[in-house]
């Protein structure tokens, strides 16, 4: 996983609430055995007409947002299925930050494990950033300092310290877990003894 520190980008606004993982990546694209190639199907059914052509009005298809790496979404982003394919599709498309007032639990965990910063906003900060997104302004997100800065404002966010550190350092969490081998062995031995008694 790449380490994450600071990025600057325009904001792609996708402001509906409860955007579920079926909208992020429809189930018919889950028949893959790798993580690659999902970016091109991100928000597939919102991005394309039934005949496969792009819907020019959909935000991801608008030229001014090409190459943007920050998504601004409504409440409860990523609800529904546990498919990590949603995170793979976002990162595959180039998104590194998703900002919302709230995230669904499983999506939140999946995003972090793929180097995506799920950034929780206050309602007020959301409103500011919605305005910035409409005017095409660029913002910068600074993870070490926990700040989002735009032309005429800043917002200080919080993130669980462990998650923040893992993102900053590009930490492989499995490597970290395997460092607890002794404790895992001891736990298993203790459990075996209790369940026999």
């Amino acid at each position, binding site marked *: 996983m790449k380490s994450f520190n600071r990025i600057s980008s325009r904001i792609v606004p996708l402001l509906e609430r409860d955007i579920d993982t079926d909208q992020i990546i429809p*189930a018919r694209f889950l028949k893959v055995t790798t993580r690659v190639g999902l970016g091109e199907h991100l928000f597939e059914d919102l991005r394309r007409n039934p005949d496969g052509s792009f819907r020019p009005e959909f935000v991801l298809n608008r030229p001014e947002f090409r190459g943007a790496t920050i998504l601004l979404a409504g409440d409860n982003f990523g609800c529904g299925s546990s498919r990590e394919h949603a995170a793979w599709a976002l990162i595959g498309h180039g998104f590194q930050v998703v900002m919302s007032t709230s995230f669904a639990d499983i999506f939140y965990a999946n995003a972090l494990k793929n180097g995506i910063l799920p950034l929780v906003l206050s309602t007020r900060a959301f409103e500011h950033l919605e305005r910035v997104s409409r005017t095409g302004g660029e913002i910068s997100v600074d993870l070490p300092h926990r700040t989002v800065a735009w032309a005429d404002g800043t917002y200080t966010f919080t993130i669980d310290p462990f998650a923040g550190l893992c993102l900053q350092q590009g930490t492989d969490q*499995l490597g970290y877990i395997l460092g607890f081998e002794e404790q895992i062995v001891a736990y298993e031995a203790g459990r075996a003894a209790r369940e026999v008694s």
Partner: protein
Amino acid sequence: MRLRTLFEKIWDAHVVAVPSGAPALLYIDLHLVHEVTSPQAFDGLRRRGLRVRRPERTFATVDHSIPTVAGELADPMAAAQIAALETNAGEFGIRLFSGDDPRRGIVHVIGPELGLTQPGMTIVCGDSHTSTHGAFGALAFGIGTSEVEHVLASQCLLQHRPKTFEVRFEGKLDAGVTTKDMTLALLAKIGVSEGAGHVFEYSGPVVRSLSMEQRMTLCNMSIEGGARAGMVAPDDVTFEYLAGRPFVPEPFDAAVLRWKTLPSDAGAVYDRTVTYDVSGLAPMVTFGTNPGMGISIAGRVPDPDRCVDAGSRSALAKALQYMGLTPGEPLLGRAVDVVFIGSCTNARISDLREAADIFRGRRVAEGVRTLVVPGSQAVKRQAEAEGLDRIFKNAGAEWREAGCSMCIAMNGDEVRPGEYAVSTSNRNFEGRQGKGSRTFLASPLTAAAAAVTGRITDVRTLL
């Protein structure tokens, strides 16, 4: 001693370590694996040269992308995914219920059926409906593929401790009103995100009176309320269900004694509590594009203009546009194209028996495509032994092999664009049952009533 909830007792018993500055390391007792969310995890193990730490705690099945017509070849991508699971299970020494194995079925149906799911366990699977297993008084939740890899390699997960949320059901359900209706009513009340960061514990006299299969339906949809897990304290109903199943511990009586210590202590405190009185509840049906958008069967489609906040207004307007519905119109009497009776929510034998009672002596309405898909091959055999398959087939419904089928529409079973389906599954998201599909979530009784009348119908008029 501190009074603890069911959740807290299970959590405390599974903490392996509490590293400073990091979430707790939680031990996982049972890991269920399916073809869709696991291939990348096994590849990760191979890349790192790791083995599966506890293959005896890991079980795999094929359910999401498998065709439900016997002998039909899966599409090449689905076939490759299924083949990958077969290879991975062989290479890493995991038991797999695939192909003609009589134990194959939807992962959340076979876990309980085989007695793998037990009270007090921590259970995970790369599937959000893992919450189903909480019906046994287990802490069970869905995880992503990275976490699947973590559990395969270490049998552990790094987890922040969620908060507790008691959902208490009071009153008594009327005839024709089922656990599914009660679940949809709860979601209509609390919405789809209130449970985030929490574990539901369902309690109260209604929950105590539910069978294990009904408790599974209730816990199954916890994730639809935003809670990763939902649970019911184990009791004699639980122990009687489990007795004699293939994978239950021996001696069973000793296990029951341990399990009896699990229910929340009297006076234990939850972070939140909500109470719902089910008295007078009518069958429920959803009208929108998330499971919280539900109304009483005789209700009318709500009007976005009456929403207090702008967010709800636009969400509702968008949902109604997708669904092709007008504010204020009744759903009762609306014609439907497809009826799907299946999924990890409602494809157990009791669900099929309920549906069969409606189909018995009736015919599927002209032009309605009706699929009945058992949750497992064991459910299929049981239904056939009881003659339910003949009732479905004589009525004109299609009787299929076990699988997730039209709930997730990955296997070729799908609702066509613009069609309306009444479905016993768990999600009515845009495109969930196929691109452009429009879903009305309902109970097996209500789905069967729609099949035989061709319209959204109050099943109580057919009882």
